[in-house]
């Protein structure tokens, strides 16, 4: 096979999909089978010589990550944030729009003055997070498994980065909503009750923009809480029971869609995808999430230890949200 054919494969086949299909053993179509055969031979040759002249392993993984993490839409995050990207050496500021109406209409006698009131455009500076993953790929592994080892690495790198981003975003939202604020709903038991779920749903209903396509808002929580919210005592009907029986949980609570995050999926270090003991209600966009620059995948050949060292660096993103924009989000804190 020639260099041209490899380049053609990268352009025509969705590398992330190919990686996932390889990892799960799904049936490939003709184009994909050919692609896998070429890639397999190519990587096995690299594993044999221990020399990856053009850092192709790194560039393959980088392409997969770019396709999936930077370019793929994500329903949940897209509904919560203004998404975009800024250059590696850029900065950005976010404004809370529309501006909150803080003009006050004072009751007044005619012919005099009242205190002035003002509008303030709240400008939010982002907090940047930088995440990095490093791993080793032995020559023997690449020699034996060829394309499969690259596919595994690619899919898992994407998942690790996406999950880290998700976790960071929800942690910032969690820290931004403090006790005593209107959007902090305290629940004294370990599971949500009708009182706290009603308060959350009401908070969202008051603020969401139904005219907008995605305007219903969403409730996001670990699946165990969505399950509990689907089975509240007293608020039942045959329809509700049937839906829970068929689907496992209610799709909506008081007209707000519920989105359960699996408690079994964990980050690489064992922590859950979103903070425990929390139920989040999102009424609209809470801020701005911008990817900063591109991820860089660096590769180093270690012929003495017979491995490729891979470094996934510069996965940087900025999250801009503050007290005012967080008005669009509420949380229930469980005991």
């Amino acid at each position, binding site marked *: 096979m020639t260099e041209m054919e490899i380049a053609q494969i990268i352009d025509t086949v969705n590398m992330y999909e190919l990686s996932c299909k390889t990892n799960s053993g799904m049936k490939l179509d003709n184009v994909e089978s050919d692609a896998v055969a070429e890639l397999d031979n190519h990587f096995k040759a690299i594993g044999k010589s221990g020399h990856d002249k053009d850092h192709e392993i790194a560039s393959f993984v980088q392409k997969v990550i770019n396709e999936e993490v930077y370019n793929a839409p994500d329903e949940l995050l897209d509904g919560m944030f203004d998404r975009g990207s800024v250059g590696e050496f850029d900065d950005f500021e976010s404004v809370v729009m529309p501006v*909150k109406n803080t003009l006050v209409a004072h009751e007044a006698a005619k012919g005099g003055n009242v*205190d002035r009131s*003002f509008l303030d*455009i709240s*400008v939010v500076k982002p907090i940047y997070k930088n995440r990095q993953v490093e791993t080793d790929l032995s020559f023997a592994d690449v020699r034996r498994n060829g394309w499969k080892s690259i596919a595994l690495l690619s899919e898992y790198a994407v998942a690790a980065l996406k999950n880290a981003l998700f976790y960071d975003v929800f942690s910032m939202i969690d820290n931004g909503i403090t006790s005593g604020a209107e959007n902090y709903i305290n629940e004294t038991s370990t599971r949500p009750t009708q009182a706290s779920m009603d308060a959350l749903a009401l908070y969202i209903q008051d603020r969401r923009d139904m005219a907008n396509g995605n305007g219903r808002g969403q409730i996001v929580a670990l699946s165990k809480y969505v399950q509990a919210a689907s089975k509240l005592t007293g608020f039942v009907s045959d329809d509700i029971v049937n839906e829970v029986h068929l689907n496992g949980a209610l799709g909506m609570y008081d007209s707000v869609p519920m989105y359960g995050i699996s408690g079994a999926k964990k980050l690489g270090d064992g922590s859950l995808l979103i903070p425990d003991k929390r139920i989040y209600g999102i009424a609209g966009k809470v801020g701005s999430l911008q990817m900063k620059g591109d991820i860089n995948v660096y590769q180093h050949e270690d012929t003495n230890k017979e491995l490729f060292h891979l470094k996934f660096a510069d996965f940087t993103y900025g999250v801009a949200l503050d007290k005012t924009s967080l008005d669009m989000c509420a949380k229930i804190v469980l005991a």
Partner: protein
Amino acid sequence: MLRDLRVNCAAAPAADFAAGADMATGMAVVKNYTAKEAEFASEATATDIYFVQKARIPVGRDAAMEYHSDYDKMFNEVSEGEFVVLYAYNYDDAFATDAYTLTSGDVGKYVAAGTDGKIVVATGTSKYKFTGFYDDAGHTLARIEVVEPGTN
């Protein structure tokens, strides 16, 4: 931050004094006519005090940003030597500042300029009365009215 709440719109505040030290808008200062500088009072006083203000004009890199909050640092921080506008308030004016060391228990008391530029409870005669806190789009300012001179 200094906000005019109910004032005479024909006042002519002095703009030819430089700041004698690093300060912020809303702070209370006295005029040093010899050095032509605005300085903090040497001891707390309510006589001949002025409030620091500056025009909200973005400069340099900051001008590239599309929106600015009135509370942005560049509009409110004053460096030593920078020229400032000194607002004076007269009988029956009402204004608000965020440079204060007051609590809700001090509402209704006469106040004066402290030695750090912040408004404090007055120990002598003062014409400035603290009428309560003013919520300016989420920021808490102290609302002050100018009344007949009195003591606490």
